[in-house]
């Protein structure tokens, strides 16, 4: 089972865990199993076209899967997936356009 690192914004959708494990031979399979176990993650990870949302990056170990083979990138049990959503938390709540 591959390890998936869950970012803060997704933790409420996986019962508060920082890391979860999921089966799968490819990145797509692992994420599909994550979504099956935690359905609330679906809309945050995938668009209506079934592709990863453009504001979410998924890394196999330290490499963006988009520069590998995307959702068909092969995964082994020793691999870690990192889900990285865009995060803007910073210093100034009042700074708005």
């Amino acid at each position, binding site marked *: 089972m591959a390890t998936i690192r869950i970012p803060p914004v997704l933790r409420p959708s996986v019962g508060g865990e920082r890391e979860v494990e999921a089966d799968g031979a490819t990145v797509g399979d692992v994420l599909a199993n994550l979504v099956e176990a935690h359905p609330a993650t679906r809309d945050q990870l995938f668009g209506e076209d079934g592709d990863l949302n453009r504001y979410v990056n998924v890394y196999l170990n330290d490499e963006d899967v988009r520069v590998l083979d995307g959702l068909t990138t092969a995964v082994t049990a020793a691999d870690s997936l990192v889900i990285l959503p*865009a995060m803007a938390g910073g*210093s100034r709540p009042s700074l708005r356009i």
Partner: protein
Amino acid sequence: MSQSGSELLRHIKGQIKEVDPSEVVQLLGEGVVVVDCRETEELTAGVLPGSVHIPRSYLETRIEGVVPDRSQRIILYCASGVRSAFGAHTLMAEMGYDDVESMAGGFILWKDRGYEVEVPRSFSAEQRERYSRHLLVPEVGALGQQKLLDARVLLLGAGGLGSPTALYLAAAGVGTLGIVDDDVVDLSNLQRQVIHTTDRIGTSKVDSAAETIKALNPDVNVIGYPTRLDASNIIEIIEGWDIIVDGVDNFPTRYLLNDASVRLGIPVVSAAILGFEGQLSVFAPGHGPCYRCLFRQPPPADMAPSCGANGVIGVLPGTMGLLQATEVIKLIVGAGDPLIGRLLMYDALAASFTELKVRQDPECPICSRDPEDIGDDELGVFPDYEAFCAASG
């Protein structure tokens, strides 16, 4: 068989290439790395323009940080050409560098010939004392401190991230700090915004930060912008700054800043924080990916939590802000490997750092183009921009 020092020098010089100053003067700025291997205190007489300083005693341990490419052409010089001859021999014979030369006659001959030298600024007695720990660090030294004093760094916000960044950059002697913030100090800020004080609640953050900075280091000139960044003023505000420190809490401003900084070619040291987690990266136009290469578009407003709504542990912006300040200082003095093309994630609860690669996107809508072609009406625009801004208020 033992040999005398002069015999050894003759032997070494027979095995390396020497280059005359008249040739070196033609090579400055032509892609050759010129390394000054004298001791720090010898630099007061001046240095070759554009040279980097690695004292001979640190040459073997530091050369790879400065010149990782073994095929790069390197010219070493010292005062007279002796230490640089030994250094050139070591780099080629022991460390596998292919193309290292020693400048014959060293700095003394260079200066006698009347070629241009850069003379490090003379520091006041107070500055020598104030920055003495920097002057002792080879990566900073007198030249690095001069660069810090000449540097202009713009901070977006004097809040959680901006507070520690501003304090340490001011302490380091960054000569000009710009601060953009239209907010006033609030009691709820003081859990993390350490540049402000309880007795300044209700006063402008720009003024409060400037007061603290002036008290810490009178060398620093503070330029305040008590305004909000928007598409109409961003170019005017950020133009002319050497480095921008970004820690704003909302996506429209991050995209706006990215696009404007790519257009103007200004590096941005960027951090984001939430809860117990932080992200950090350096976006240097022309040298690596931009923010849009990392995230083509922001999440919808309902999936974009901010610290104001979700909270943040007070020390976290301190940690991330100081990592930003560290990257700023590295960029200014030219030391080490900046966090370009990499993203550092810090998980405070796990006490762990994770590094991810950030690739330049050949189809990036902003940084794949000629910067001059990025129009005013494109700055900060992304799909569903209107809806995003309406939803985020």
